[in-house]
């Protein structure tokens, strides 16, 4: 068994924590886990990418065209990582748009997504409604657990959230997770 995920977004969106939660849940189940993340320059508002590989794997990088799931924490970033997704597999797109400073206006992006199974949601709005945009990442984790066949149950992921976040944030993070599950139903 092997399950490959690529998460893309913008520095500061909490992609690393989201990746860690999924990885922790899989690790608790006894699966081999590897994660590769971008560091350094990319943290300064640039594109951020995280590879999460679960199961029978060797390297930390997901081969292009072979991912089971691609998640865009930001609209444009979803498409930036689309080259990793295998045909027929799942794509989650957060509607939230963050304009690159180097562009005048947010570009119109139109790609044929007919090859993929797509879930669109506005995780950032859901998080804002919960009172804190910072929990967008956990809304997306909830949506991932509902929409994709992650090799970890929703209960296991909730346990992993409790393990991974500071205790004072556990409640709102778990609430965000539940809202994400609902948005994907």
């Amino acid at each position: 068994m092997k399950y490959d995920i690529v998460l893309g977004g913008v520095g500061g969106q909490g992609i690393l924590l989201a990746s860690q939660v999924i990885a922790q849940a899989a690790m608790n189940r006894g699966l081999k886990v590897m994660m590769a993340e971008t560091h350094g320059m990319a943290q300064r508002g640039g594109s951020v990418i995280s590879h999460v590989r679960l199961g029978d794997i060797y390297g930390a990088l997901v081969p292009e065209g072979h991912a089971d799931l691609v998640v865009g924490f930001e609209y444009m970033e979803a498409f930036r990582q689309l080259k990793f997704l295998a045909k027929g597999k799942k794509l989650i797109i957060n509607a939230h748009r963050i304009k690159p400073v180097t562009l005048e206006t947010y570009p119109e992006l139109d790609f044929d997504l007919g090859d993929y199974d797509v879930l669109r949601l506005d995780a950032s709005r859901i998080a804002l409604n919960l009172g804190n945009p910072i929990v967008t990442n956990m809304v997306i984790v909830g949506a991932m657990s509902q929409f994709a066949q992650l090799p970890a149950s929703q209960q296991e992921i909730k346990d992993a959230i409790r393990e991974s976040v500071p205790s004072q944030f556990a409640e709102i993070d778990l609430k965000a997770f539940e809202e994400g599950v609902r948005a994907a139903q």
Partner: protein
Amino acid sequence: MGNEAIARGAVEAGVKVVAAYPGTPSSEIPNTISKIAKKYGIYFEWSTNEKVAYEVAFAGAVTGLRSMVTMKHVGLNVASDAFMASAEVGVEGGYVVVSADDPSLHSSQNEQDNRYYARLANIPCIEPGSPQEAKDYTIKAFEISEQYKMPVMLRTTTRVNHTRGDVELGDILSLERTPKFEKNPRRYVTVPTNARVLRENIIKKMDSFKSDLDTIEGKGSLGVIASGIAYNYVKETLLLLDVEAEIYKVAVTHPLSNAIIDFLNRHDDVIVVEELEPIVETEVRSMAQKENIPVTIYGKDIVPRAFELNTTRVANAFRKYKNLPLEEVREFDIPARPPILCPGCPHRASFYAIRKAAPKGIYPSGIGCYTLGFVPPLSAVDSCLCMGASIGFSCGLSEFVSDKIICTIGDSSFFHAGIPPLLDAVYNKHTFVVMILDNETTAMTGHQPHPGTGITGMGESVRKIYPEKLTEAMGIKTDVVDPHDVKRTIEVLKEAVKSDELRVVIARRKCIFLEGAERKNPYVVTDECTGCRLCLNQLGCPAIEFVEGKAVINELCNGCGVCAQICPSNAITGD
């Protein structure tokens, strides 16, 4: 994380001395050691640069303590003088030199392959390919170093340093050693008479080198030799393409084991898969030639040389070998989202002031967050060669062109490599303006302290060194400004440029994300906004957007107020 695994490996091996200058992708090794040094009785220091770090840790190893120095690949360029000589002098306690290379230049100015350095110095080089190996090989490196009494390079790459995975821990070795420097001028004083003997010794040592770290697995008529992280991609490629092969996994990439000769003898075709330079490949070819083995060797003719490998690229190399159609990667045309200076970053205001003070000037710079000043609209960085190069480059440039020159250097870079070129500027009467962008930390690599911060790697408070005291002692007129006082900064810079003498202007304000930095609520744009776009077009701040003909400040704003100071309509207000 691979870097935490290396730190753990060092602790398990009983390391007692660690020194470092931060640099991506190596920084989390010393960051981790810094947190646990006291607990495990380790002496740790953030050194002023990699050469000093190398010498500090080397001293530990010479006195018999297990010691480690960590740096990014280009850090070894800085440390190379000490590195080369120390290889021949040798050590008493194990000495591990971690060189974290950065294939694909995720956060670097080049992608040099430091395995060349191990060959240049003629010391063993070990290459882990996973977090587990990162820990295990660190321990092995200490053992090998102690066995052969010479430094050992642990060569990692970004994908090893920054890969997270489960790592099985081992016991922590308790080594009670009393450090002692045994005087031995014939060894430690490298005058030619002594160094000639050392030179012959190191050749003998390396000729006698043996290690059992390499492994062989699998069966097949095809042979594959893979080193470091490339091994993982080979394993996945064989599964993906359903190809059988015998794999020789190279853990020690210098010197190569003679076991490779038998391996070559068993196969008609051998593919060498390694990231970056054809180092193993070249040596394997040389072995085949020397031993007269009738084997066809494939390497960089089918495996890409530039940038990091992945399973897709390695699989395509195997397809080329088998004359199969290549797998095309579907590319989507997405506008770039380059990294930029953070909202409220004091460098933004400094660069704005530079452009105002010398609009037609030349702006040499160097390595740090501030390199991002090259991005339009700031466009106030015209060159970046390496750490500290802005001042040395300006020394030369000011002699050859008549343009006004304002060069920039960060505080950490100034201590690292900025002082000797500034002395040169005084000595040789070069005329330009040095702006020290002092954000009171090493920001780019994650806020490590340095001599100007008054905190050591062990968390101790010490006397701060102020750059202005150094520059004034050199006889250079020095001004200290707050870059967020935009008007004064521009005035001081203008005056400095006009003075036609060597001048230093220190722009001091804490990195916006440093503990204790002043952060305020977002500013707001009032109805006075005329939509002139000046703030948007001159600052390039991610917190300023333009919506329906007017500027809007978003939630990213940290309240630095620089935009309010430059707005010609006074249409931006804050706390």
